[in-house]
């Protein structure tokens, strides 16, 4: 597992999407805020999530955390616009205290994390548990061409769709 450069998932603070009225609703221990996946009007959902993250107050993490920088959020939005297909599994979007953001999918045996700390620069980490030769996953730096992620996202989307058929 890739070492988390930020507080571990167990210390996440969740923001409840049903309470997205422009306020940040903090549940649990405050270190990092996650916006969780929800089906439905997902374009609007992602828009709302990114807008809220750009409007976080300074110190949102209990330290000196900055709101997500506008140009980084724009870059993240355009990456999503480029790689998401209709009906795709939605990622979690996590603000970083530095003003960056992380876009994450964790579905079954696949974990994908896109960390954006500079405009036009994305650190991508993929852990595929079906690939025993890479137990720590693969890290790569992408700027413009995100087609590398397409086969992984296709698997995540297929898994999410199957899960929805089974339980939905």
């Amino acid at each position, binding site marked *: 597992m890739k070492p988390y450069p930020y507080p571990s998932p167990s210390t996440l603070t969740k923001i409840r999407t049903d309470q997205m009225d422009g306020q940040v609703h903090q549940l649990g221990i405050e270190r990092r805020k996650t916006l969780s996946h929800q089906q439905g009007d997902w*374009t609007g959902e*992602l*828009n709302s999530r*990114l*807008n809220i993250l*750009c*409007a976080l107050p300074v110190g949102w993490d209990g330290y000196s955390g900055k709101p997500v*920088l*506008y*140009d980084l*959020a*724009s*870059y993240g*939005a*355009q*990456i*999503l*616009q*480029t*790689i*998401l*297909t*209709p009906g*795709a599994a939605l990622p979690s979007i996590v603000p970083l205290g530095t003003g960056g953001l992380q876009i994450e999918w964790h579905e079954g045996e696949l974990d994908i994390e896109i960390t954006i700390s*500079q*405009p*036009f620069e994305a650190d991508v980490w993929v852990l595929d548990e079906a690939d025993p030769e890479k137990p720590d996953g693969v890290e790569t730096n992408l*700027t*413009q*061409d*995100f*087609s590398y*992620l*397409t086969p992984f996202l296709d698997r995540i989307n297929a898994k999410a769709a199957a899960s929805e058929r089974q339980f939905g």
Partner: protein
Amino acid sequence: MNKRPDHLPDFEEPPLVEVAVGLQFNAPPGYTSLYAGDVFKLFKDRFPKPVEQFPMPPSFELFGNSHPQAFQFNLQPQIGVNRYWFLSNDESELIQFQNDRFVRNWRKKGVSPYPRFETIAENFFEDIRKVEDLFQQSGLGRILVNQCELNYINVIPLISSGENLELTEIIGGFNGLSNGFSDFSATLKKVIKNEREIPIGRVTVELTTGNDEHRQPSLFMQITARGAPPSSDLDGAKIFLNAARQNIVETFSALTTAKAHKIWRRKQ
């Protein structure tokens, strides 16, 4: 000054009405809108008319899958970030500046001739270097370019020597257009690749019919080349913009007919 590439198609009277050369760069940490006043001072003698505008959102040419874009994001505009226009006295030239953009436009006014890309680009780089010097003197650091953009806007009258022209007499490859259609709108895109065949940008052509400022039926053809430079400094931007210009001129020539080229006095 750059030399015009010998092989490039050349028109004595191109239907160009506007050319915009621009860079998008990382917003410098520590920038506030107060710096815009210092930037205005750099250009006030040549561009004395400031106008405030809404900011342009960041835009990146990205590649991911072959599906059409599933949705658009609409992030709320940044608070306290404005775009400024600095206009020349006759308003034929314009500088656009905001915390992460610098654009220079030439606009056709009256019968003024097109000054040619080489001149526009030379003026553009002369001016952005002044902004970079100011940023450095102010502790904002160097300009780190992440996208370059070149935009050619053509307005093509659908009338020549008093005779109406069919669209198919101007643009090729749209054979059905002569079959009674009165309005036309299309967007074409092609990928720009670098020497290693890696996609770095796109050329986008937007075509639409309408009336020009004299209520004359016209074809509006906007060709934009946008993408990432090979390096984030101004030399990298120059390389991308020179290639973008070639791409745009070749695209324009390929999309338009020999008859139209004759009207615009193609030299080669």
